[in-house]
């Protein structure tokens, strides 16, 4: 063999530093992108559900609700909720890949590397957010179809919110994945959490004057605090009557106090960071 004659390339592995951690985050993130790019089926299938909700459910229920929406198309109303939904599912699938990685052994390769587990978890979450961001962009592109005009602030604002939400959901998924070793169970748990979260969040209805029990659950649902800023952002780019604005986007209230949009966003951020911290702690403790 020719290698016998060639000099051995000896590699020096430097001591651990923040740069080596950053490289680890980057490569785990990059792997998510490679895998997403090669999985075209996933790109298409994960668009189906939000599109069904937006166009089929939206158009269908429009027949019933036109009286109470003050002339606003139902599709326009639920569009902010669908913007959130689309990234949720993609983020959930990204987190699921940790369970696959464990099943196919690849997780072990990452776990034995001389880097912090937190770098791997963060890389995974940033990867999940990025991949979800691509889906988000497709959904943003549909804005004119549902009567929302393009603008730079709309696109950037929506994308930023989507990335934050996707990061938090991926972190949540990774936290769950740390304890579940079978993909079926993981998907079951996520369905059990994600679907109720979506239905309770006010993505499909205004959150004022809800029945008592639903109001409580709605305020406890983290997704509420992502949908509300999203809707406020989208509505700010529409020309709505004040009556429509008041009835369709009443704002989230805590015991009569209206939660500012900034606090809503911060809530999502804080919860995301909390589940991320738990996920990292779990991966540090395990194996």
């Amino acid at each position: 063999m020719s290698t016998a004659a060639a000099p051995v390339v000896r590699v020096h592995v430097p001591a651990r530093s923040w740069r080596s951690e950053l490289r680890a985050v980057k490569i785990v993130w990059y792997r998510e992108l490679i895998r997403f790019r090669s999985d075209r089926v996933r790109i298409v299938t994960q668009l189906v559900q939000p599109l069904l909700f937006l166009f089929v459910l939206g158009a269908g229920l429009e027949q019933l609700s036109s009286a109470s929406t003050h002339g606003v198309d139902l599709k326009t109303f639920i569009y902010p909720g669908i913007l959130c939904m689309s990234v949720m599912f993609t983020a959930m699938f990204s987190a699921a890949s940790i369970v696959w990685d464990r099943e196919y052994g690849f997780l072990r390769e990452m776990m034995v590397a001389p880097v912090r587990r937190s770098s791997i978890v963060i890389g995974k979450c940033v990867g999940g957010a990025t991949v979800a961001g691509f889906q988000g962009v497709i959904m943003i592109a549909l804005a004119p179809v549902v009567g929302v005009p393009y603008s730079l602030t709309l696109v950037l604002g929506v994308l930023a919110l989507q990335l934050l939400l996707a990061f938090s959901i991926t972190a949540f998924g990774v936290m769950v994945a740390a304890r579940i070793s079978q993909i079926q169970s993981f998907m079951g748990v996520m369905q059990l959490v994600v679907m109720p979260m979506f239905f309770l969040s006010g993505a499909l209805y205004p959150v004022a004057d809800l029945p008592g029990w639903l109001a409580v659950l709605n305020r406890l649902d983290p997704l509420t605090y992502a949908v509300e800023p999203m809707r406020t952002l989208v509505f700010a780019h529409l020309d709505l009557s004040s009556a429509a604005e008041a009835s369709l986007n009443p704002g989230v209230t805590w015991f009569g106090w209206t939660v500012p949009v900034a606090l809503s966003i911060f809530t999502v951020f804080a919860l995301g960071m909390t589940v991320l911290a738990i996920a990292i702690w779990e991966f540090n403790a395990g194996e």
Partner: protein
Amino acid sequence: MPSAISVKSLRKSFGEFEAVRGVDFEVAAGEVFGFLGPNGAGKTTTINMLCTLAKPSGGSATVAGHDVVTARDEVRRHIGLVFQDPTLDGYLSAEQNLRLHAELYGVEKAAVAPRMRQVMEMVGLWERREAQVLTFSGGMRRRLEIARGLMHSPRVLFLDEPTIGLDPQTRSSIWGYIRQLQESEEITIFMTTHYMDEAEFCGRIAIMDHGEIVALDTPEALKEGVRADRIRIETDDDGAAIEAIAETFGLEATISEGAVSFAVSEGEEFVPRLFAELPVPIRSVSVSRPTLDDVFMAHTGSTIRDAEELGRGDQKIAAQMLSGMKR
């Protein structure tokens, strides 16, 4: 020479079950050290502790001069791992898998490409570097894993059953790489196997059974230590021959592969007696030196295959405990 691996009364238990019951050994730098034993003997648990994947319940171990508990990252930086179960990302190409490894281990950027070429050429996969790993056969994957384990120039390479489930040709080429590595990279190789014929290639071997090391030496010394040659005879009536051997010489013979076989201490000297005293006509006779199978038999009282059958119960318990821990 300093020790590449130094292990002192290392133990590991899972609840009540003691998987490793206090083992001691040293592996010199540059050595090919074989760890032999049936499934469930505690080999993998020991290797996991040395690779920092499992925390010892007691005792201590250093690998490449670093303690496996207190200097976990230092150990990890200096070891390469090839596991029994595959740990490649099938959706990535061979090249991408190695690059990912290089990034995770912080290999200097300038060295990544030449090192990748070198390790991939060694295992004969350079031409296939752009193919998705999913399209690789089992043997190709194992070769790729070995290449990947070498990407960061580890001082110690751990191979857990590197040839299990592979065809003879791939097995022999893997042994080719191991020898090549030993010559060119000054690397220490620590491997587990339960193929006795392969253990012969190791510089020294340790036989592990029920969580303990029952023998440790060079293959030659171990075989000499058995002091039993194996005699195989073909006769006209094997049943009668076995009975006669038991009556005349007090030896226990068995039938294996169509011949009567038994062990005696001085094979050559025994053959004339055999012809003189055995009432059953003998058609052919062969005397062979002890193999590692005989060594294993001598130290554990069973062949490695029988031990595996027995060990399976224990292993199940261990597996259950492991899966319990994950939750």
